[in-house]
């Protein structure tokens, strides 16, 4: 049975680091975290309520800890999903994958696949032990985050910014070429009509 000391030890040892990792990455405050902390606080308040029976107090501590466990796992999952968005954006773009990553493309691709595979494994572990041993997946999620962070550190933000300009220039040149081709195409078609069709009629 969890005690109030266990609860706050868990808060210090797991919750605060998970929160720091998430907030340090997204540089904003996740609403999901506030909801769970609010729920946990409601149970802690019941623990200190003198009108509540001792057995119910213990149940409230267990419930409060469940909320903290959930929010810890959710913090890493949210962090994973944010990293996944950034990585998929680069992985899915041929130009960025080749020119904006400070690592050989093959290596980046292989690590990206590993990142996805490990996330899948962590998720399966979490689902398998849900309600029984929810923290079983915690280390797996941390490992995924470590790998994701390693991959993100290889992406060069300056090159990403430059790539936007390069793509703009390429797009402009393409439009210009298409315009020139369609102009000459039209002129050729007009000449063709003039020489062959009108020429035949004149004869």
């Amino acid at each position, binding site marked *: 049975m969890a005690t109030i000391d266990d609860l706050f030890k868990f808060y210090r040892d797991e919750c*605060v680091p998970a929160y720091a990792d998430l*907030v340090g990455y997204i540089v904003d405050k996740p*609403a999901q975290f506030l909801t769970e902390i609010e729920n946990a606080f409601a149970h802690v308040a019941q623990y200190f309520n003198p009108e509540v029976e001792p057995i119910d107090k213990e149940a409230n501590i267990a419930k409060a800890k469940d909320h903290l466990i959930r929010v810890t796992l959710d913090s890493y999952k949210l962090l994973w999903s944010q990293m996944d968005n950034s990585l998929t954006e680069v992985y899915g773009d041929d130009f960025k994958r080749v020119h904006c990553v400070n690592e050989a493309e093959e290596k980046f691709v292989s690590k990206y696949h590993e990142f996805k595979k490990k996330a899948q494994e962590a*998720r399966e572990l979490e689902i398998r032990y849900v309600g029984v041993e929810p923290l079983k997946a915690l280390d797996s999620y941390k490992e995924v985050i470590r790998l994701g962070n390693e991959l993100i550190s290889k992406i060069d933000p300056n090159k990403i910014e430059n790539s936007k300009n390069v793509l703009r220039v390429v797009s402009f040149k393409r439009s210009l070429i298409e315009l020139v081709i369609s102009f000459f195409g039209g002129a050729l078609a007009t000449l063709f009509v003039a020489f062959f069709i009108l020429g035949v009629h004149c004869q």
Partner: protein
Amino acid sequence: MGAKTVIFEKKYGVDLRDFRTTEQIDEYMKDKLGRDLEVKRIESGVVTHRGNVFPLRHYDIEKLCDNALRCGAANKG
């Protein structure tokens, strides 16, 4: 054994032992960014929306109270 972060300490060059609460993390980030952290709902398929399915609303409570008091005073006058 002290708690460890996966990326926070390395990224910001700090030691988590200097932080005891989430509020201290917020304060540190506020100093670093030069602005308050904004509460945001992060959309993700891997986290279920427990407890709160309503959209977030931002209130400046001080401003709301001051405005209401000003209107009250004006009506009285």
